[in-house]
């Protein structure tokens, strides 16, 4: 059997929707694997004696040294060490944190709720404010409203999250003392939410600026297209016309979601530092400072996996949003 038809069949599959999704998934898995090798290998690059670094504050006697060498398989080749570590990591065992003296997985799990709430709250605030503003700016393209909104978005893009945090702290701590300015609040969820109002607003400013610009650009394109002219000529109300355009604008907005996620991840670290919030960001800084290698490896791997999962989620969202992607048979 000649290979040409088979190759053509393969090419056809690769350009169909499920083929593309499978290829993307494989790509994402490959990226996570490459990153995990880098993350693991990093520990050998840290200056100083590796065993001593891994021991941290624990006493360095023959038994503990032997235990560490055994745990990390330091007498075996690099690939065996890596495979052992990655295998354990897949089962949720990242070793013990030398800083917190508990299993790394537990230490991380304890911090997830705060950081996740902060990120989600910021995304909600940003979406609720930025998308309508973007629509309005696009609807009144090149008019004063558009200029004002775009100008504010430049300000939002140019103000780092920690600068916004500082300004909010200043205003709310001394002039409008209605929100708490430091810490994560007590255990109950409502008080935590209350403590997160200012931090998530600080994070939402930059995020909103990005989102607003994306929405505006996509809406300007959509509003200039023929189907909108046609919808208007059929006498649809302006609200319905805008909703129609917004639905078609969703695809370019979602395409840029990766940018938004990396911004959120960097931003939570800055905001947590500015507001002294005990989340994953502060934990990462702490872990690096105290050379808590197991914890650093686990945190970075978690970040990599979260980004990978979000990338796949974005690809799936395309299919939901755009029937053309779902029924795609041939590469365009």
């Amino acid at each position, binding site marked *: 059997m000649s290979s040409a038809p088979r190759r053509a069949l393969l090419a056809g599959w690769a350009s169909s929707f499920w083929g593309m999704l499978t290829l993307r998934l494989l790509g994402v898995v490959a990226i996570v694997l490459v990153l995990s090798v880098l993350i693991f290998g990093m520990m050998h690059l840290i200056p100083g004696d590796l065993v001593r670094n891994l021991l941290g504050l624990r006493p360095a006697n023959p038994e503990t040294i032997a235990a560490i060498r055994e745990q990390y398989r330091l007498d075996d080749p690099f690939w065996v060490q890596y495979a052992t570590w990655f295998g354990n990591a897949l089962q949720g065992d990242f070793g013990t944190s030398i800083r917190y003296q508990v299993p790394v997985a537990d230490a991380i799990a304890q911090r997830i709720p705060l950081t996740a709430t902060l990120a989600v709250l910021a995304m909600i605030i940003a979406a609720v404010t930025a998308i309508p503003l973007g629509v309005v700016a696009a609807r009144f393209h*090149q008019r004063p409203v558009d200029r004002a909104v775009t100008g504010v978005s430049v300000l939002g893009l140019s*103000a*780092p999250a*920690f600068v916004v945090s500082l300004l909010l702290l200043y205003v709310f701590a001394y002039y409008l003392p209605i929100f708490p300015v430091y810490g994560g609040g007590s255990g109950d969820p409502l008080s935590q939410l209350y403590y997160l109002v200012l931090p998530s607003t600080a994070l939402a400013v930059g995020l909103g600026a990005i989102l607003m610009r994306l929405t505006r650009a996509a809406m300007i394109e959509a509003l200039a297209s023929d189907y909108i002219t046609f919808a208007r000529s059929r006498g649809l109300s302006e609200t319905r016309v805008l909703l129609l355009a917004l639905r078609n604008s969703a695809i370019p907005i979602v395409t840029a979601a990766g940018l938004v996620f990396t911004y959120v991840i960097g931003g939570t670290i800055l905001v947590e530092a500015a507001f002294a919030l005990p989340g994953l960001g502060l934990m990462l800084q702490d872990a*690096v*400072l105290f050379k808590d290698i197991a914890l650093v490896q686990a945190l970075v791997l978690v970040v990599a996996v979260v980004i990978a999962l979000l990338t796949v989620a974005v690809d799936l969202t395309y299919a939901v949003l755009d029937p053309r992607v779902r029924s795609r048979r041939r590469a365009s």
Partner: protein
Amino acid sequence: MTAPSTTVIALRPAPRAGRGGLPGLILTGGVLAAALLLAVLGPVLAPDALEQDILLGVTPPGTPGHPWGTDELGRDVLQLLIAGSGSALAGPVVIALGSMLLGVLLGTITGYVQGWLDFTIGRITDLLLALPVVVVAIVVAGVFGSGYWVTVAMLVVLFAPSDIRLVRSAVIEQSARPYIESARMLRLSPWRIMFRHIVPNVTPIIVTNALVNFAIAIVALSSLSFLGVGVSPGSADWGRQLDDGRALLLSNPAASIAPAIAIVVVACAANLLGDVIAARAERKGSAE
């Protein structure tokens, strides 16, 4: 790249587009030039910015001899701000130019030649683009130590992928045009076609992007120095100054608010200048 927005402008002829006008160019360019001048002249204007006066300690703005007051260590806030402009701006300039250079070189080659090199570099840029800068910076600084130029070099590498992608797609778009076809028929060398024919035609995109990168780099670098990555404690730098001044919000708000505003103003000017140049290039393009 610019085609869709050009059609939008053609469809909706604005009476007089304010953006891209001369006043905007002068204002934003002026602010940037002034900031860069301040950074260059910093050592002359504020030679003893780091001089401490522990006995004096924190003073509010308006203290005799210290118009913006002093910080915890008795250092003059205004002098510190002037001296800090050096490390706050030198790095972003290098980052913007360095990533632009990498972007033009690799983006043009991968866009014009394509093939396996394009594929390899494409996968590497995919990988780098998925990395959150702040996380990488914190970890790299923890592993290799956090020197200023180490941090700048790392940011060049992390900024380059978006430049490579941008230039690559612009080059691919240009490669299909008749003038490149005729250059090929004349048997000009690929090197010459790429860098003498294609690159000059994508220059507006490159310049705009470099300015936007400069703005992002200011934000990124000052964020890192706020977190203690890249600048040593006690040195003059806007991010660092802001972090040091945070505890003094009540006694001398200027200690942290002055660098905060400086960062925002310079980043804003760079962003707006990028917009202005893009609008001018677009209008020139649509006038043809």
